């Protein structure tokens, strides 16, 4: 119940912001009868109508994860964000080993297999992508050699 209502309300706010932003789209002197604003307005209208339906007639709630699980998912999210931010500077292998070991530990909390999985994936995927498939990956941070 509540989840549908919250999501619907957030979507309505977003759609209104979208309309506001669409009103500021510049039109150049060569334009067509419709112009660049009408289609976004139509899309926003659909979003608002559907969100209103969600707010007024919500489905029964899904079972949301317990606070602890939510924390765990938040941690996984943090790992992924960290990975996205470091892979360029740190090269492929080190962030991959760390990120996959942490994810592995979250699924099955045993330290040694998780560390092995991380190591195996970091090195194995590097070999697969760089050596076998020829993608342009950098193994280690620049300047370590």
């Amino acid at each position, binding site marked *: 119940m509540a989840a549908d209502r919250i999501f619907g309300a957030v*979507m309505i706010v977003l759609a209104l912001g979208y309309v506001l932003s669409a009103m500021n789209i510049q039109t150049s002197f060569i334009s067509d009868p419709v112009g660049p604003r009408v*289609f976004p307005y139509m899309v926003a209208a659909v979003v608002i*109508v559907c969100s209103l339906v969600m707010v007024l*007639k919500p489905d029964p709630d899904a079972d949301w994860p317990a606070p602890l699980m939510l924390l765990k998912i938040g941690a996984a*999210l943090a790992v*992924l964000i960290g990975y996205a931010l470091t892979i360029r500077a740190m090269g492929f292998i080190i962030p991959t080993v760390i990120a996959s070991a942490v994810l592995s530990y979250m699924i099955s909390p045993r330290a040694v297999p998780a560390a092995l999985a991380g190591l195996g994936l970091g090195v194995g995927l590097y070999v697969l992508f760089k050596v076998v498939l020829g993608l342009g990956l950098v193994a280690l941070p620049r300047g370590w050699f």
Partner: protein
Amino acid sequence: MDILSNLALGFSIALSPWTLMLAFVGCFVGTIIGALPGLGPSNGVALLIPISFSMGLDAISALVLLTSVYYGAMYGGRISSILLNIPGDEPAMMTTLDGYPMAKQGRAGDALVISGVASFYGALLATIGLMLLAPLLSRVAFEFGPAEYFALYMLAFCTLGGVGSNNQAKAALAAALGLGIAMIGLDQTTGMPRFTFGELHLMDGIDFLVAIVGLFAVSEVFHFIESHGKDSAIGVKLGRITIPWRDLGRTHGAMARGTGIGFLAGILPGAGASLGSFLAYMAEKSVSRNRANFGKGAPEGVAAPEAGNNAAAGGALVPMLTLGVPGSGTTAVLLALLLTLNITPGPLLFTEKPDVVWSLIAALLIANVMLLIMNVPMVKVFVRILSVPSWVLLPGVTMVAFVGIYSLTGSSFDMLLMVAFGVLGWICRKLGIPTVPIILGILLGNAMEDNLRRAMVLSNGDWTYLFSSGISIGLWTAAVLGFVAPMFLRRFLKKPPIPATESYDRD
């Protein structure tokens, strides 16, 4: 015969050792992807697009590789359905209904062979159907102007929302969300930036591959962490594989009916393989002489949905190739592949790039034979791979998603965007909002707007032009029906529950 000479052209390209090798690799990887729970044809292909693109494969090679993965995943989905009672992918859901009971009776091998042959049967006939039907439809598609295309896109969204989801409002919301995201970037007609908020990364718009990999693959990570343990069931032992000729003979009719129904369901925009296997199973259950045994391990109940979903996979390629409108999540991903390769699907594809189309069709025929061999005598190899523990598999899949996007775009911004789409996908899944319409919206948004605006240029701003031709009126009618009718039909078509499994460590 036009078709035969075209097919000869296709085979002359597809039979080179390099293409055969790619087809083999694609089939093998595809079967694994299909068999692993949580990875299906759509996220499997989505993961591999950026990688095959970064490898610098040419258009035909990439197409052969990824459509082999697509067909392979359709075959592979049944393996975990039968052995673990976990559908390897969504279309394989119906196969669990009779496949798992068969496996519990010690007939896992038989079930795998029957479903493998049914997959071959369905996919082969559907590929032939594609060969015959696609050129015809592409001739009709020449009649389409911007107004008709706009109506066609509406039809795709409406049927996808109507058939594929339980709540029309949520499906429509998802489609609009996708369309709204597609608007980000430079407007094609006027060259003015829209919704970029001065962010340079957004000028080119949001790369649909980033959205697809995020929504389909990264969201799986969050889902998996949340549900780990719940999905692991005790597998059924697989004995020696023999070919049950008697059952194959008896299920022949079921396969034929399943193929027909599945192919038609696949052609319908928005319906796709899940609906194909569902309808095939329900139809077979109502006509079969063995109907009392359905749900308790009837071979027909394995043959019909497997033939159905593989035929639907072939059928779904018809509207995708001729009209550029995908019929399902996976064909949406394949459309993304074509667009990445700078191939615009549509009627012109058949006249301007016959080599691409026909080598693709030839490759599908070859892939089918390879898949039959892999999935019947060699099925044990895949059963072994199924036992890869999830704590290795899942981090692996995540890293593959990152590598793909990283080597494609090289930017941290896009990887963060992918993670954001992953979170969005997880929330949507929680709320029962389908993600396929979001993808479709992002993929088709610009074309849809473009066609609307061109139609208005032609008519000088007269909106009734959208409903002025017979074809477009027909498409609009079908769109409204496709959106509204399922609300009433849903009462009659209830999905049967999945058989109970003994699973361990529920938490």
